[in-house]
């Protein structure tokens, strides 16, 4: 219990610092105690947020929008693909099944960072660098999602149910979407959350591939700002407030999807 408490503090203090710091002017940020508010915190915080959303013709909301599109759309698509793939690998017998699965599993071991440069060179060949697709397409691939979906499909979608669906005249695709997806939904929520978080935090790939500021996800945008701090000191507060705002969608995603995170949905289905 004590250890848990210590770790909770360890993880929460940086976020608390972020919250406190984002309510300070630059002067107060440098001079006042960094873990508590100042008397003018409320007003300064509001000013900071207004500045954040209007600075440079409102580029920050644009970055947020980009990140949300990348994370939600690519995450959603990636989840469906992973589910289909995992389901197929688990429920259909075909030649080379284990080979495919092992290759996919190998993909889990390759860090995304290592792939950024090869991806850049490949996208250069087809002239897709510095486009929406160059960040979107790699984001829909999730070897871990395939792995998790297969394991989960094997344990939570009984062959008998699929068999019953077939006897009732349901096509394979229909069976997948109406029966299997529902039984697999706790795993799919997990896959989606993982995808969402990893795309949201994806930084290196956009850094290498994107040049156009209007395509940046919020991570890269904030990084760009942070690298300008020595030229425009005022921007430091924007980076801090921006960092705070940028974690809000993650919180929302986690809190709202948590309740779908139930296990054993189909466990009683055969009794």
């Amino acid at each position: 219990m004590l250890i848990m408490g210590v770790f909770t503090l360890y993880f929460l203090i940086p976020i608390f610092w972020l919250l406190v710091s984002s309510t300070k002017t630059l002067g107060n940020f440098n001079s006042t105690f960094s873990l508590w508010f100042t008397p003018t915190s409320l007003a300064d915080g509001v000013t900071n947020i207004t500045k954040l959303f209007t600075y440079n013709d409102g580029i920050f909301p644009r970055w947020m929008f980009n990140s949300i599109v990348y994370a939600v759309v690519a995450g959603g698509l990636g989840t469906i693909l992973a589910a289909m793939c995992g389901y197929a690998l688990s429920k259909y017998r075909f030649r080379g099944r284990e080979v495919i699965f092992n290759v996919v599993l190998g993909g889990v071991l390759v860090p995304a960072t290592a792939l950024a440069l090869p991806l850049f060179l490949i996208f250069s060949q087809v002239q897709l660098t510095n486009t929406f697709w160059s960040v979107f397409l790699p984001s829909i691939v999730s070897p871990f999602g395939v792995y998790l979906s297969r394991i989960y499909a094997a344990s939570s979608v009984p062959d008998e149910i699929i068999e019953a669906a077939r006897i009732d005249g349901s096509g394979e695709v229909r069976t997948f979407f109406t029966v299997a997806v529902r039984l697999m939904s706790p795993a799919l929520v997990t896959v989606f959350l993982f995808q969402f978080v990893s795309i949201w935090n994806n930084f290196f790939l956009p850094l290498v591939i994107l040049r156009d500021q209007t395509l940046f996800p919020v991570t890269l945008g904030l990084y760009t700002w942070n690298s300008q701090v020595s030229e425009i000191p005022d921007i430091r507060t924007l980076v801090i407030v921006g960092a705070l705002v940028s974690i809000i969608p993650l919180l929302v995603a986690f809190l709202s999807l948590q309740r779908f995170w139930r296990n054993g949905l189909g466990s009683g289905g055969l009794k």
Partner: protein
Amino acid sequence: MHKKFMKVAAVAVFASLALVGCSAGGGSTTPSSSASCTPSSGTVNLSFTSWVPGMDKVVALWNAKNPKIQVKVSTVPNGNSGTYTNFFNQLKAGNAPDIGQVEYDTLPAFRVQDGLQNIGACAGVTAAKSDFSAGLWNQVTFGEASSVYAIPQDSGPMALYYRKDLFQKAGIAVPTTWDEYAAAAVKIKAAGGNITNFPKGDVNWFAGLVSQAGGQWFSTSGGAWSVKLTSPESTKVANYWQDLISKKLVTTIPGFTDQWNNAYNTGEDWTWVSAVWGANSISSGAPTTTGNWAVAPMPQWSSTDTAGAWGGSSSVVFKGSKHPAEASKFILWLNTSTEALT
């Protein structure tokens, strides 16, 4: 698919052949020819990658006045935060922007990789020499006659920033030579402060100090690079600072960190040998000391007045640009005309 690839490859080969013809003068293989920088006809679109805040406004000004040469600017993280690596990758992939921003200390790296377009033959470039100081111009030509690889944008001559209130209170004279500086360091230590901070990781800063002492690390002579990291000048500067560090007269905090800001903000460190843009860092990093700073010339090694340089960047035209003439016209305007600079 295969056919398409061949087509792409053919285009690439053709483009690189065209480039070879274009880069005459810079390469050691072909003699320079004046025809290597001909303007294109029709409207030209240029891409420009920079991290200078507000660059989009300057470019908008240019675009309004030059409908035939339209520039699209991209604002990216600063060079050492990844953009240089990206430039190298893009040069390799053949899709680098036409124009980019490169700091002086990184220019040689791009030159060595043959990533810079020699714009010496482009209209107005060599004539712009008189707009810049000789030392600065030497950095963008690498000492090669009739070659120009970049147009200087800003420079970072170094000076001594010091806390005039603290110096006055302690009754210490502002040092004008490095010997006086070392003597002042002892007095300041006695007064409870440190004369300055020595950021051990900041090689560019140290290079500025060495260049003030007359040392030059990298140069070209006879078409070959010569590297002199252990010249007498370098070792003199290194020994000087090592002495201060050993006697614990200076702090050794990594530069531009919060801890570093704090050392200046609380008056723990009293001076900073820095470039002109350093004033900005002080006002942001040490806001409580605003108004207490003054600037003096850099302490000297001998009676001749010299200053080092730290930072500063230039605009370059990358290899692979199809429009070096228009690109160099734009960067000349960007870095020399009064309307762009204000």
